[in-house]
């Protein structure tokens, strides 16, 4: 146990963040929230042109991005072997030689994210690494199975060793403006998670408007979400910069008002190293450096890592890299 916690402190922040306990549902606040789509899109569109990270700084940022990845497999054909391979990649996401060349010690991804049935396999494969296992839950991805089963699913996953639970909200509560129902649901999920951290997946691609995204973000935080997350990866539109801007502005407002930091996880559609840099600068500019650590920021991604590895090798050799030179996850 002693060595394990030492290893963890090597790549997790020193500060222990108090968990967001939630608060009473404040409907006045929720209903006052506005999100002007055109203005948000303009900000999102100009951000990549306003921020640029080069050379060693870029390499450092890309390494950071790796430590923020929830390395994910959420497929119907997942097997024990497939999940073990993914976990091996999570333990060693970058070839040691490459890390040496960069002057960097060992790093791991932020977590591994799987379906419930794969939790045990993942926990076993990651034993001693300190890498948490995240499980998607509550009838993922649609969230339309019976409520008691969704709550029960959380309990099963926590019992199986998941330290993080990615729940899906009932989109219909948002679409009908039933904020009380959303709040109650989220609160029940949070309670069921116990010590495990809960990420609330809003499925923003199905919420109809950025205003709804903003209000749903706030309600989920009021109900005690540790993280808010964009998407299941199964919607037709997943993480986008405008959606991210809305959600992290909600996080900022929540922090300003309550003093509790809630984490953010964009998921789906982030597959390029350059995209990851833009997201990092978005977090840095809008929320500050504190949100660049794995306890407050994660990428839900599967193919992002491969692109980052190629960019890192390019940084070291000066030659553009090839995918087959890096171990698949």
């Amino acid at each position: 146990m002693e060595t394990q916690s030492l290893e963890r402190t090597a790549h997790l922040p020193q500060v222990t963040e108090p968990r967001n306990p939630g608060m009473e549902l404040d409907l006045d606040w929720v209903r006052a929230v506005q999100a002007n789509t055109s203005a948000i899109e303009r900000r999102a569109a100009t951000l990549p042109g306003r921020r640029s990270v080069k050379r060693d700084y870029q390499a450092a940022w890309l390494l950071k991005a790796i430590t923020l990845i929830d390395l994910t497999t959420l497929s119907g054909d997942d097997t024990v072997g497939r999940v073990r391979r993914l976990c091996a990649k999570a333990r060693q996401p970058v070839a040691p030689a490459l890390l040496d060349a960069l002057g960097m010690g060992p790093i791991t991804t932020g977590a591994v994210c799987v379906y419930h049935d794969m939790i045990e396999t993942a926990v076993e494969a990651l034993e001693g690494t300190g890498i948490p296992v995240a499980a998607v839950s509550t009838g993922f991805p649609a969230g339309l199975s019976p409520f008691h089963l969704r709550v029960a699913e959380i309990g099963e996953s926590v019992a199986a060793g998941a330290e993080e639970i990615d729940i899906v909200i009932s989109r219909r509560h948002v679409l009908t403006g039933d904020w009380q129902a959303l709040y109650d649901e989220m609160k029940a999920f949070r309670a069921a998670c116990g010590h495990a951290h809960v990420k609330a997946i809003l499925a923003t691609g199905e919420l109809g408007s950025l205003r709804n995204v903003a209000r749903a973000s706030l309600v989920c935080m009021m109900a005690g979400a540790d993280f808010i997350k964009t998407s299941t990866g199964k919607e037709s539109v997943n993480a986008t910069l405008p959606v991210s801007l809305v959600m992290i502005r909600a996080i900022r407002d929540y922090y300003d008002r309550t003093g509790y930091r809630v984490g953010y996880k964009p998921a789906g559609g982030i597959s390029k190293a350059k995209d990851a840099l833009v997201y990092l600068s978005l977090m840095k500019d809008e929320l500050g450096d504190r949100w660049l650590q794995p306890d407050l920021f994660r990428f839900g991604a599967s193919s992002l890592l491969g692109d980052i590895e190629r960019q890192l090798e390019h940084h070291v050799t000066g030659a553009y890299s090839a995918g087959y030179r890096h171990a698949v996850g």
Partner: protein
Amino acid sequence: MSIKELFETMEYGPAPESAAEALAWLVDQGDRFGHFIDGAFTAPGDGFDSRNPATGEVLATLTQATQAEVDAAVAAARKAQPKWAALGGAGRARYLYAIARLLQKHSRLFAVLETLDNGKPIRESRDIDIPLAQRHFYYHAGMAQLMESELPDAEPLGVCGQIIPWNFPLLMLAWKVAPALAMGNTVVLKPAEYTSLTALLFADICQQAGVPKGVVNIVTGDGAVGEMIVASDVDKIAFTGSTAVGRRIREATAGRGLELTLELGGKSAYIVFDDADIDSAIEGLVDAIWFNQGQVCCAGSRLLVQEGIADRFHSKLRARMDGLRLGNPLDKCIDVGAVVDPVQLQTIERMVASNTAGTVHQASCALPENGCYYPPTLITGLSTSDPLMQEEIFGPVLVSTTFRTPAEAVELANNTRYGLAATVWTENVNLAFDIAPKLVAGVVWVNATNLFDAAAGFGGVRESGFGREGGWEGLAAYTRPKGKCKALARIEPATGQGAPVDPIDRTAKLYVGGKQARPDGGYSRPVWGKSGLLGHVGLANRKDVRNAVEAAAGAAGWAKTTGHLRAQILYYIGENLSARAEEFAHRIDAMTGKRGGAQEVEASIQRLFTAAAWADKYDGQVHGVPIRGVALAMKEPVGVIGALCADEAPLLGLVSVMAPAIAMGNRVVLAASEPYPLAATDFYQILDTSDVPAGVVNILTGSHGELAKPLASHLNVDAVWSFSSTDLSAEIERAAAGNLKRTWVNNATSLDWGVDHSKRFLQAATEIKNIWVPYGE
């Protein structure tokens, strides 16, 4: 620092754009530049250094133009102009298109050179200035193509003198040169002395595009060269710069028959209502006042926040400011670059230092040791009476105050001598569309700021100048109606002696605020006809002008009436005039001693009907700007228009001015025909019986020479027109410089009143306001 350390600190680090290509171009040119005259660069002469404000380094040596060089440039432009116009729209379009393509091909060279020369962040020159400049040439290539078919009655002005500022060097060049060339004019352009390099690179581009020699001429130098251009034999002056210089140009060009457009200073309001998307409104401020270091004429520099959200808004804003990155403008990760010159930096420092009111917050970013840098600054808690709420700072300094209600927001926003732009943030469409038309500004952005495009006109009202750049409305600044004007001879009042024709004395008075008023001075003069004494008219003086303008200003409600209502009243005036047509015809004939009275009355009735017809049809446009949204080009009344009416057509001259002006919602102060005033004084009886609200039309009689100056210098008059046979053009235009009111003077030429010029009058009687409304959910 090692990668391992950077992994912990997560700093941005430097991300410099290379200056190598731009510096190489300067070396290729010998680091010394002459002027571009008649298609070739002149040998460099005595001049001055052009410096990089971020470092103080000398980039090149430029030549101060001499009088002979300015004359040569104007002569070259004069010589080239007829052939350039005769080339036809399609022929000119090819050159404009070629320029646009070349600007695109060399876009990074232009961007880097602009940043080196001006100090603006490379992001801005790369993503905003240069693409917009290209867009202007593409757009106006299209306008050249369409000129013959869409503007069949327009012809080029001739040679245009163009003087541009240092804040958007290439973009302002494009705004000036593209429409001028498209419409068949040739140009002599002077870039600002701080920032001439991209104009010289543009000259290089013109050579590459094969633009015929003499069509584009560029002379460099300081304000003295600008004065030479203003004084030279050009047909038009287009100026963008400070209000003080604009006023001097107005005075210097007075009475010379030059066309003039001025795009001047501003203190644009940035209004945030309590239902706005606050974070987006704050991000908007970054684009409003920290764009180009705040050196933007239309910068949203005056923040008005609804009281209930002010504290939260300001604290969020301060946090956002602290995140701004200031430094090397060539760094791709910089938000705020260098101020253009040490002189400008000192001005900003002095103005902020002189302020003792409110609370000052400056962004917590480190300033580079060298170079002209000023930190983003917010001053909250100011009142309208504080100088910094009224004066343009032209730097990254935002001043702020609060308001309680929408009406108060409008009142505070309009409490300024300027009228360039305004920004409104609200999620309520009713509120946005209620407020935007009430703001006195040429451009209004709803839930956005500093959006520009070639398809939408840009320009101001009040002391922010006049004329529009961009869009269909911008072409008016570079064309005039075809046709020649005849010289106008002064018409003296008839003299005579003997008894009155009408044994019962009828006293013609002034018509002010819907009432007959005796002249303040208590003097009258006789009006003689061939048959004898026709009557007496009052001699209005400056106090009568004051009273009439007061009445006109008080009738502001007229502007808010519907076009339909104004049409009904104009028809009614026509109907009532028609009922007394014979009497009016007699009166005109008796005064003029001619027999055209009946025809003049009939034409006057037609003018009234034409104006009535237009009252509800002179529509604005929806411009196709390249955003998801629209730019609504709304036509608004100019306000209070003072006019000296034609002497030769006592009724028609007055009606031709009055009818279109009031049809558009203006209020008018009309000085009647000086020699033949009785048609006008009879006419107010018609107005009295036609439901015209008090103050909408005010009629003065007397000496045009005496009335011109008080009318033209009155600061509450928005436009002044003169069709008098007394040549007062110079005096009027000089006096109009006070509040930079729009002028339309005849320069001692006559307008053929038998021809219906209603369209010209409608155009002169309206201002185009572009309201940008991005949308999307």
